[in-house]
């Protein structure tokens, strides 16, 4: 028997009738308005929508909560294979409660947490206590990757088999590359014993050195040390060769450069069992944003050029890049409120992922909505987790999204404990209204009535200015 690999504070399944939403699930070919009846956390009926005033359709019994979702969309819940929940050790940035609440607010029904915590998730003891905490605190199911090397030191393998037995989904030294090809090779060999994906943060530190942003015209202008694209792509090429040689299963995290997409495509052509992810920020923003010297735009890998961004979008469209991953990386205000070079790398992403992709890629016609939904859920399959599916008999893992809602990122604060969003202040289209994860309602946006009150009341009563 394989152990469980997702953990959360289990709540009883909810009963809910979601009425009249347009249901889009690319895997089941659903793309039509439907009523969704959920009982005990399971989808028990999908049927053509009944007009609210008339009888027929699904029974609207007195006991069931009805969500009138006409004009809104229901998607399978998103799965994020790459988040930093900062637990244990850096709970002032994020913890399992706030991080999974942020995930729920973003429409996610499962997330996978990285092990670069303090201490590193590199022993059964650390992983075991983390799993216990998740079972008490996590609002949506969380999976954990353990580190490949002890303390992310790159010198000694962790007890990978024991970590897998306890519930680790796989392994990564994310935040750092596995610099030594020999060390990585041993991990890939050991994967044959214990299974589990090996996920890699690819960066040659000899090339990235003290770089803080993409090397290009903007870094030349700002006098900031650059991280060349080839610091990522050369490592992807190297590790693809190792994956092929050892017939190992390898996933490349947060691709950022055109050369990296090309390296991944060639590796696949050569027959390597490799996959890749891209983040909403790399898919929608470029290094031009760094001209502001705002540390919200400092992340690793860095935002790169427009040509890189387009290559990532094309890679996602074609499927060379299988999935979207936020690399949600919370940092405290005081850590980010420093000169760019001194600020830690990373942006939050869970609460904005869908809206950013919808606004910047779907609305302008760069990607189909169905493609975005498929890629935002595909991380599950890559990590051997159940893929959220909208079908009768399935556990309810879904989100309700109002594509017509426009909002300013940060206007109501953030659900995450941290506010370092690279989309802060941006106007985005599409807002998650409701999320169900593992059968339970984990997020429900306070209804629009409140906002309308606020708008109509404020101007007349108080007037403007002083």
């Amino acid at each position, binding site marked *: 028997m394989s152990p469980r690999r997702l953990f959360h504070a289990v709540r009883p399944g909810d009963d809910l009738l979601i009425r009249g939403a347009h249901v889009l699930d690319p895997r089941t070919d659903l793309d039509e308005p439907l009523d969704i009846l959920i009982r005990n956390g399971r989808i028990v009926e999908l049927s053509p929508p009944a007009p609210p005033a008339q009888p027929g359709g699904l029974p609207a019994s007195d006991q069931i909560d009805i969500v009138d979702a006409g004009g809104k969309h229901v998607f399978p819940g998103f799965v994020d294979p790459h988040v930093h929940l900062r637990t244990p050790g850096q709970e002032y940035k994020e913890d399992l409660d706030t991080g999974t609440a942020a995930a729920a607010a973003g429409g996610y029904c499962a997330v996978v947490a990285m092990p670069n915590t303090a201490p590193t998730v590199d022993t059964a003891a650390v992983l075991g206590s983390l799993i216990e905490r998740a079972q008490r605190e996590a609002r949506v199911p969380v999976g954990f990757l353990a580190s490949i090397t002890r303390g992310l030191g790159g010198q000694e393998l962790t007890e990978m088999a024991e970590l897998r037995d306890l519930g680790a989904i796989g392994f990564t030294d994310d935040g750092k590359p596995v610099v030594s090809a020999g060390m990585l090779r041993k991990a890939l060999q050991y994967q044959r014993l214990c299974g589990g994906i090996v996920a890699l943060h690819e960066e040659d530190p000899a090339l990235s050195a003290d770089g803080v942003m993409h*090397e*290009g*015209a903007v*870094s*030349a*202008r*700002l*006098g*900031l040390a*650059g991280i*060349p694209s080839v610091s990522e792509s050369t490592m992807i090429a190297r590790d693809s060769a190792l994956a092929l040689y050892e017939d190992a299963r390898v996933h490349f995290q947060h691709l950022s450069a055109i050369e990296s997409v090309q390296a991944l495509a060639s590796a696949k052509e050569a027959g390597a069992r490799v996959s890749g992810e891209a983040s909403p920020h790399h898919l929608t923003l470029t290094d031009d944003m760094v001209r502001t*010297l705002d540390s919200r735009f400092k992340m690793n890998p860095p935002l790169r050029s427009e040509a890189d961004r387009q290559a990532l979008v094309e890679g996602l469209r074609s499927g060379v890049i299988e999935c979207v991953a936020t690399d949600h990386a919370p940092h405290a205000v*005081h850590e980010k*409120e*420093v*000169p*760019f*070079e*001194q600020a830690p790398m990373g942006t939050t992403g869970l609460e904005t992922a869908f809206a950013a992709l919808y606004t910047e890629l779907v609305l302008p016609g760069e990607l189909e909505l169905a493609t975005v939904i498929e890629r935002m859920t595909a991380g599950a399959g890559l990590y051997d987790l159940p893929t959220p599916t909208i079908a009768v008999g399935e556990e309810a893992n879904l989100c309700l999204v109002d594509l017509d809602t426009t909002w300013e990122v940060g206007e109501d604060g953030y659900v995450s404990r941290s506010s370092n969003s690279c989309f802060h202040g941006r106007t985005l289209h599409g807002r998650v209204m409701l999320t169900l994860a593992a059968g339970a309602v984990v997020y429900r946006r306070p209804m629009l009535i409140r906002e309308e009150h606020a708008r109509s009341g404020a101007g007349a009563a108080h007037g403007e200015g002083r």
Partner: protein
Amino acid sequence: MSTASRMPRHLISIDDLDRSGIEQVLDRAESFAEVSGREIKKVPALRGRTIINLFYEASTRTSSSFELAAKRLSADVVNVRSAGSSVDKGESLKDTVQTLSAYDPAAIVIRSPHAGAAQLVAGWTDAAVVNAGDGKHEHPTQALLDVFTLRRRFGSLDRLKIWIVGDVTHSRVARSDILAFTRMGADVTVCGPPTLLPRQIEALGCAARPTLDRVDEADVIYVLRMQHERMHQSFVPSLREYAGRYQINDRRLRPDQLVMHPGPVNRGVELSAAVIDSEQALIGEQVKAGVAVRMAVLYELLVGSPVLAAVA
């Protein structure tokens, strides 16, 4: 002052000034240069106002000339250096700036080893902020005094050919100079070892060359300081090889070419001793221009702007 352009609130980058803004500062600097020739080198323009010089990096020329500039404008001056201050005790830049802002300074002059520091400070204080060098990003008052020096010599920078030679990658002076020189109409070429020329530096509007082969086309050669530490990082194999390829000396210098340098000079590395001491070097004039130009910057930001003057 009939065509006075609106001054920005802060001087963070040369990009804060258009050509007429630069000319306005330089015209003002001309009048202050005259003050510096008097026996009593002082005008009452900023009497009763406070200027804080916040220096997180060692500096001789810039800090002393900012201090003198403020004093010659009759401002009260406070100098805060990172060594021996609360910065040493781990206070953040934001906390330091907010503490100093409680003294209600008219301006904060900041030098920092980090790009963007001046811009951050501007967001945390009501004072006008002057960037006295932020990391490898910009050093706008150095560029203004360089333009001032050239304008005095040539009348105009239009179509002047200026080569900037040396470690461009690590030079905030080079970046501000490229922007200021090109804005004033000059043709700028940067030249240095390929390891010390940033990729895509041409995006700033200059040409880039790896050798001095065509340096005889330059009217002015602006030589950058070669920092010894670059050698240890293997940007150049040795100072000897660097000097052999890039040193400006009498062998390379035509008699009608002029030489500039932001200081401090490594004699015998980027410049030969003979060139430093020759008539062709404008290095002394640059230093002298520093005080007048910084007086002009403080004056224009705090007093001279028609917009701000109307408020005051």
